[in-house]
């Protein structure tokens, strides 16, 4: 059993309520920070911890905090990004649903560090029941004096509210999230200026993910140095992994960064191996936007080393042979999975979710979806494969926000690693008439046919 930082109390009966959470040491980090540490000292602890943003980008959290403009004289804000919408990712919901006060505690301590007196948790609208859970928990925290004016008799005051989105993946991008929080369409902003300088209502703002903020209480209580001892290299601490697909035990797991992918996949403590013991075909380790890995690159890197659950090891070799830890949305596919259908499915998602602001993304995602649809449905042409490659390469890096990249990478990786499967679809359209066309035609057979 590895160290548990976020989920260590999750199985305590009633931990969702304030009374039980408090009785089990909850809100101690607020006490410690407000009474014994300066805001800069809290920031320093987070910097020392090496904690990297757990939303997917992996940017060092303490460094991000240090960018906040403290000289402008404007109000500052902390906004928690709870707009979890990346296919394969469902970890933040788990934290908020089962231990909501952990996030609230983290919000208070983090707001103190940033000098923010008005903070928000922006949650996706579909998680409406979780929104209500948070709303009730915030009321409890106000009633207990952890929120409001002069918390614990100090000069620090904080108002915290939960705000719901309404079904737009793009609002997980921090500037789109801010636009949405201002009551507008979720169109990403051009950066710079970065939110740390001009964010919510043009005030200096830090946007952090649920999981990142929830780690702050532990860091404050145990020190950044202790946190940095967990993990490997620059991948410090623990990480929530949400696992789905063709595995025996789907769910949310807290792992120490550095665990091997093989152990995570096959040990009974974690995923328990493949569902129905079918062969492993592919893996998306960090949510739908990251490149898919074929079976031969999952447990070992291209250099033949054990593949680890770290930012570095999962990306080893770049996109040619690696992927990304991303949000930790771990999707496992067995040999019955049609990669073309799956790629088309992802492309449909990105086309649907493009905000339409940038032409390469607005037009390109739809184009990708259409071409993939026709290949999957037996009307593809051999030149379509190169066309897909060309389209995705013209979206990547040419948009205001990373949605364009997110739409490109899955297509590029699918062609890179599973080109034979695309060719099979085009050469043998009569064999792909139904949606389950690979259940009786495993990939190895496909590979031999083309």
């Amino acid at each position, binding site marked *: 059993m590895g160290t548990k930082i976020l989920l260590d109390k999750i199985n305590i009966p009633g931990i969702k309520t304030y009374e039980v959470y408090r009785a089990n040491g909850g809100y101690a980090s607020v006490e410690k920070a407000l009474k014994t540490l300066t805001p800069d000292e809290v920031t320093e602890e987070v910097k020392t911890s090496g904690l990297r943003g757990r939303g997917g980008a992996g940017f060092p959290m303490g460094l991000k905090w240090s960018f906040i403009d403290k000289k402008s004289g404007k109000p500052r804000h902390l906004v928690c990004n709870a707009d979890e919408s990346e296919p394969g990712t469902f970890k933040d919901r788990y934290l908020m649903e089962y231990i909501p006060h952990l996030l609230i505690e983290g919000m208070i301590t983090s707001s103190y560090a940033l000098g923010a007196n008005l903070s928000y948790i922006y949650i996706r609208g579909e*998680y*409406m029941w979780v929104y209500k859970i948070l709303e009730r928990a915030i009321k409890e925290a106000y009633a207990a004096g952890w929120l409001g004016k002069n918390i614990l008799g100090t000069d620090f005051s904080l108002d915290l509210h939960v705000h719901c989105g*309404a079904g737009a993946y793009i609002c997980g991008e921090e500037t789109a999230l801010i636009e949405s929080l201002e*009551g507008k369409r979720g169109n990403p902003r051009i950066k710079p200026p970065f939110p740390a300088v001009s964010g919510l209502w043009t005030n200096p703002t830090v946007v952090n993910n649920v999981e990142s903020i929830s780690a702050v209480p532990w860091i404050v209580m145990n020190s950044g140095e202790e946190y940095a001892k967990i993990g490997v290299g620059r991948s410090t601490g623990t990480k929530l992994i949400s696992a789905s697909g063709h595995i025996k035990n789907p769910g949310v797991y807290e792992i120490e960064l550095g665990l091997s992918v093989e152990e995570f996949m096959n040990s009974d403590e974690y995923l328990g191996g493949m569902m129905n013991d079918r062969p492993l075909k592919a893996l998306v380790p960090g949510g739908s936007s990251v490149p898919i890995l074929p079976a031969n690159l999952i447990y070992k890197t291209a250099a033949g080393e054990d593949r680890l659950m770290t930012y570095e090891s999962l990306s080893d070799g770049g996109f040619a042979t690696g992927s990304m830890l991303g949000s930790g949305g771990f999707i496992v596919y067995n040999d019955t999975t049609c990669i073309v259908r799956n790629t088309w499915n992802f492309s449909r998602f990105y086309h*649907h979710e493009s905000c339409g602001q940038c032409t390469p993304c607005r037009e390109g995602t739809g184009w990708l979806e259409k071409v993939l649809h026709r290949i999957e449905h037996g009307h593809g042409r051999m030149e379509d494969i190169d066309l897909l490659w060309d389209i995705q390469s013209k979206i990547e890096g040419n948009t205001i926000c990373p949605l364009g990249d997110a739409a490109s990478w899955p297509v590029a990786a699918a062609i890179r690693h599973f080109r034979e499967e695309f060719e099979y679809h085009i050469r043998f359209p009569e064999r792909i008439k139904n949606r389950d066309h690979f259940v009786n035609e495993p990939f190895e057979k496909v590979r031999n046919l083309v």
Partner: protein
Amino acid sequence: MEKYTYKQEINITPELMERINELASHYPEDKRKSALLPVLHEVQDAHDNWLSQDLQIRVAEILNIQPIEVFEVVTFYTMFNQKPIGKYMFEFCRTSCCMIRGAEDMMDYTCQKLGIKEGETTVDGMFTVVGVECLGACGYAPMMQLGDFYKEHLTKDKIDEIITDCRAGKITLHDK
């Protein structure tokens, strides 16, 4: 913009107004527009889960913003319905993780059972079935959203049960 002709009775009750004011109080006095999305959710829930243009104009008046500011938001976010839908809207997640665990079959089964196609509403106005993009329940697939709640690990038997419960009025749609 095309004017929808669907009629809707507007009923901003004192309780709803109180809730709207509470939500608006979460933002600075001069930033009431920020309350737009949460307010639209509340208003939609109280009006049979859809927002006519007249209702959108009423929301604009309440928040003291221009109607266009409401229209552009309603047309951007997928959770706001611009025309009447069934009392029970089954929103099946159809993205990768759900797809590989049988979401398409579950949706087909539901449509077949209700005698409609995806995107349609039953003639009695009771049910609508739609496919939607990722709902963040990937480990509990296949699943659907029904009102404020998720129905996960769906099987054909579970779908039968949900439909029966809807018809019997046993399903809670909103967590108020």
